[in-house]
Each structure stands twice: as C-alpha cells, then as structure tokens.
C-alpha cells in the first residue's frame, strides 16, 4: 500500500516534470499574443487563431503527407536492413566479425556535417533530387538500429537456437521464425525511433529538395519562423504542436503495442 502510494507519487511528479514542456507548448498554441506576453501557463481564453494562421500560411497537410510517406518507407527499409545485419552480429560467427561490427559502429561516430555535402553530390549524380529516394534510401543502413537489434538478439537464449537447428531450420528461417518474433519489442521500438527521426529530419530534406512536391513537415515548421521580424510564438507553437501531434499519437499506439508484445522468457 505504502509502496504503491510512493510509486504513484514518484510517477506523477516525474510525469509532470517530463511532460511540462509539451503541455506548455500546447497551452501556448491556444493563447493570444497578450496571454503569451503575460507569461500565463494556461490561456485566459482558448483561441484557434494560431492554428488557422498556420493552416493558411503553409500547406501543412501536404507536408504531413510527404513526411508520412518518407518516414514509413525509411522505417521499413531500415528495419529490414538493420535486422539482417544484426542477425549476423548476434548469431553467425566468423573471423573478423568484431572488426566488421566496429566498422559499423564507427559510422555512428561520423559527424553528419562531414557527410552531407558529398552525399548531396551523390544524390545529385544519381538523379534523386526532389525524389523520395533521396530522403529514404541513405537511411536504410543504420548502425544504431543494427546495434540495438544485436543487443536484443543476444538475449535470445542459446537453447532456442539449438532447438531450431535440431528442428531443421535454416539460418534464415531461424531468423524470421524465431528471432524476429522473439525480439518483436525491439522492432517496435526501433520502428518508432526510425519513424520519428525521419519525421524530424530537417536539413537533409531541405538540401535534397528544391520545391514543395516532396518536402516534409519540418521544413514547413521552419517556415513559420523569421529573423528580422518579431517571432509570433503562438504561431510557432501551434506549428510545433501540429508537427508533434502525429508522432505523439504514434508513440502512444506503439507503446500499447510494446506492452502487448512482451515475451517474458520461459524456455524451461
């Protein structure tokens, strides 16, 4: 009982601290300029003005659709490519594997600033400018995802590998029949992560697109801000909320999935 109430107290406090910025952003997005200037936490009167302005100033729905397409494709591709690599690093030993793995990890260390310009030229020479390909394919291979999945694959009990071998499974069958379902949670996690990071990319999509046909929502968000004139915080927050809303929803859904998909071990 005691323990329960302590837990709830901790949870509530932590939730307030963690969620405050998001809550505040949402709150501000419904405020009028004067409310904002008065540093209110809640709007004195809820106004939809900011949203109306966002909708009229940028083609936000079109951007959202593009973002959705890009993020979905990237997530899928990334899951497949990373999982394949992670499987090798967890289950198929060969001489020099550790070295190859570190080579993979090393790509995490490469500052993207250093790769952006050459990559841009690559994209250009491939003729992928203003194309979804430019925003998806380069992100299919992800050391981060490989690393994440490898860590989880390594917790698959060895006995299952043995049992599968005895049952006559080929490596690939073991991979998709045992490892993938076993590590479902980390796939969901990585999927969410991949989707969100792609969703949140800004500079790269800006670079490889020159017109609105395939541009994503973060660019739209950036369009709400300008330098030499006063920032309209309510508008900016409304934009931010519109951009994070889909991802927050996805997260809530994914979180449910995660909870359902738990496979607590019981090999014996």
């Amino acid at each position: 009982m005691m323990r329960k109430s302590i837990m709830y107290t901790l949870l509530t406090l932590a939730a307030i601290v963690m969620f405050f910025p998001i809550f505040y952003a949402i709150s501000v997005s419904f405020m009028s300029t004067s409310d904002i200037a008065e540093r209110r936490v809640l709007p004195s009167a809820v106004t939809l003005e900011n949203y109306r302005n966002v909708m009229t100033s940028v083609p936000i729905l079109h951007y959202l659709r593009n973002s959705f397409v890009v993020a979905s494709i990237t997530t899928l591709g990334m899951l497949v490519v990373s999982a394949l690599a992670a499987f090798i690093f967890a289950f198929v030993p060969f001489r020099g594997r550790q070295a190859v793995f570190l080579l993979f990890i090393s790509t995490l260390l490469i500052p993207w600033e250093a790769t952006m310009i050459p990559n841009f030229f690559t994209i250009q020479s491939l003729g992928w400018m203003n194309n979804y390909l430019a925003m998806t394919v380069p992100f299919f291979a992800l050391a981060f995802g490989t690393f994440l999945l490898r860590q989880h694959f390594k917790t698959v009990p060895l006995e299952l590998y043995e049992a599968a071998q005895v049952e006559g499974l080929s490596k690939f069958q073991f991979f998709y029949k045992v490892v993938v379902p076993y590590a479902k949670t980390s796939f969901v996690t990585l999927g969410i992560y991949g989707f969100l990071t792609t969703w949140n990319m800004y500079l790269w999509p800006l670079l490889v697109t020159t017109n609105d046909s395939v541009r994503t929502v973060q660019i739209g968000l950036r369009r709400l801000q300008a330098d030499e004139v006063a920032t309209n915080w309510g508008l900016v927050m409304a934009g931010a909320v519109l951009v994070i809303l889909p991802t927050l929803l996805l997260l809530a859904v994914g979180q449910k999935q995660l909870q359902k998909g738990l496979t607590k071990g019981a090999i014996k």
Partner: protein
Amino acid sequence: MHRSKTVAETIKQYRVPSTRTFWQKTANYRTAALYLLPSLLLFSVFMFYPMIYSLYLSFFFTDAQGSATTFVGFENYLYLFQQASFRNSLLVTLLFVAYTVPASVILALFLALIANEKLRGIGFFRTIFASTLGMSVAASAVIWLFMFHPTTGILNAALGLIGIPAVSWLTNSTMALISVSITTIWMNTGFSFLILLGGLQNIDEHLYESARIDGAGYFYQLRRITVPMLSPTLFFIITITFINSFQSFGQVDILTGGGPAEATNLIIYSIYREAFIYYQFGPASAQAILLFLAVLVITLLQFKFGEKKVHYQ
C-alpha cells in the same frame, strides 16, 4: 585403461581433420556477406566515401564552391591546435558530455524503473515518459527556447514567483551550457526510457521472485540483479547517449548558436558553422576527422572494457 592420458594426448591421437570442404567452411562468410551487403553498400556510399572525401578535404583549403584548391598539408590541423577557440570547443564538448550522459542515463533508468511496476494506469505514465521521443529536435529546442526566454519565459516567471531573481539562461556563459544540457537530457530521456523499459521487462521474473524470498531490498535487487541483467541494454544506451551527446547539434543551433562567447560551441556545432556558414570545408573536415577519431577511441575503449562487464544470455 587410459587413466594417464591427458586431453592433449587424446586429441592428438584421435582428432579427426575436418572434412568440411572449402565451400562448407566459408558458409558463414557467405551468409554474413549476403546479410551485410545492403548495409555495407549503403554505408560505403553514404558514410565511408564522404568520410574519406572529408579526410582528403582536410588537407586543403576550399574555394567558394567548396572544391579543394590549395593543398596545405597539416595546416588545418595545426591551426586548430593553436587556436584557443578549438581548445575551448574541446573543453566545452567534454563538459557537455559529462553533464548530459550520466544524467540522461540515470534519469531514464529511474523513469524506467518506476514505470516497470505493475500498477493501474501505468501505460499512461509510460506514454508520457516516452513522449519526448516524439519530439523533433527543432520542436523541442523551440519550446525550450521559449521557456528560457529572458522576458516571456515561464522559467524565469516561476523563479520570480518564489522570489528568485531572473536567470540568464542562455546569455550567461556558465548557464548557457547547463541550459543546453537540460534540454538535451530532456530530449534524450524518452528514447532511453523506452529502451531501458524494454530491457527491464525482458528480465526473467523468477530471478526477482527468488531474490524477494531472500529478502533482498529494492536497491540490492537493483544492484545485483537488475543492473547486471540489464547490462546489454545499459551498455547500448550508454554508448549511444555518449555518441549522440558528441553529435548534439540542433539544440545548440536553435538555443544559443554556439554562444555566448563560444560557451556552447560544441565541436559538432563548430564543424557545422565552419562548413555551412563560413563555407570552409578544409578546416571543417579537419575538425570532423578529429572528432571522429576522438569518439572512435573512446568508443573502442568502451567496447573493450565496457562490454566485458556485460552479461549476455
């Protein structure tokens, strides 16, 4: 009968040379090659090639179009080391890493632990804790920028309420780095939380049952069971947070732009500025290479010493 024979002798006497053909022996290599091919291909094109290109550029000055024109040998590197600003960047980066990594991991672990309880409504809390994962760097930074706002910011307003004078969150050299760190920690937490929670839930319940019977207290269980069993996940999170910390860019760009007086000029930001604002790819590449090497060394050390402490199944 064979009491006296050692293992070595037995092996010598009865070892059967492997009958596997070359084709069979290399089966693993072939599987590996096949599975790794997509990754390696993409990495080569989008990671290794640019990196090598960067290495090349780092020995040059580049013209206004960004193409290498003047070979300068190690001048870019030497200049960096002479420069107080680069040394400052190094220091600031290390400080930033020291502020953010332990705090992020500990905060996320704490949240994961309290969210791992079987309580009514826990799903709600989990979603809340994971929510920062859904925030783009840009959106997060903008929100924090507004909260840090010297006049309209809610933080100073709150401080004012309890009678504390306004803090120059982003314009004071010491505070600015802390403010950026706070934002970064907040942003990192959602993801780390989710991963750690997953790790926690994969720990066999029986181990805790046994420990509970022994009367192990919460923290004892944490130290002796949870952390060791969670070690693969923790190792992952620490490594990733660490690397991410070195690469934190967006929040710096939006919150401080490297200022005030370079107090938040992390190397990665410095690279960005050099490359995309000054358009000096030579020095930018040199910094990128140095950053790469530094993180590489630390990561290698982490794998060498850290992964030993990790318990895999």
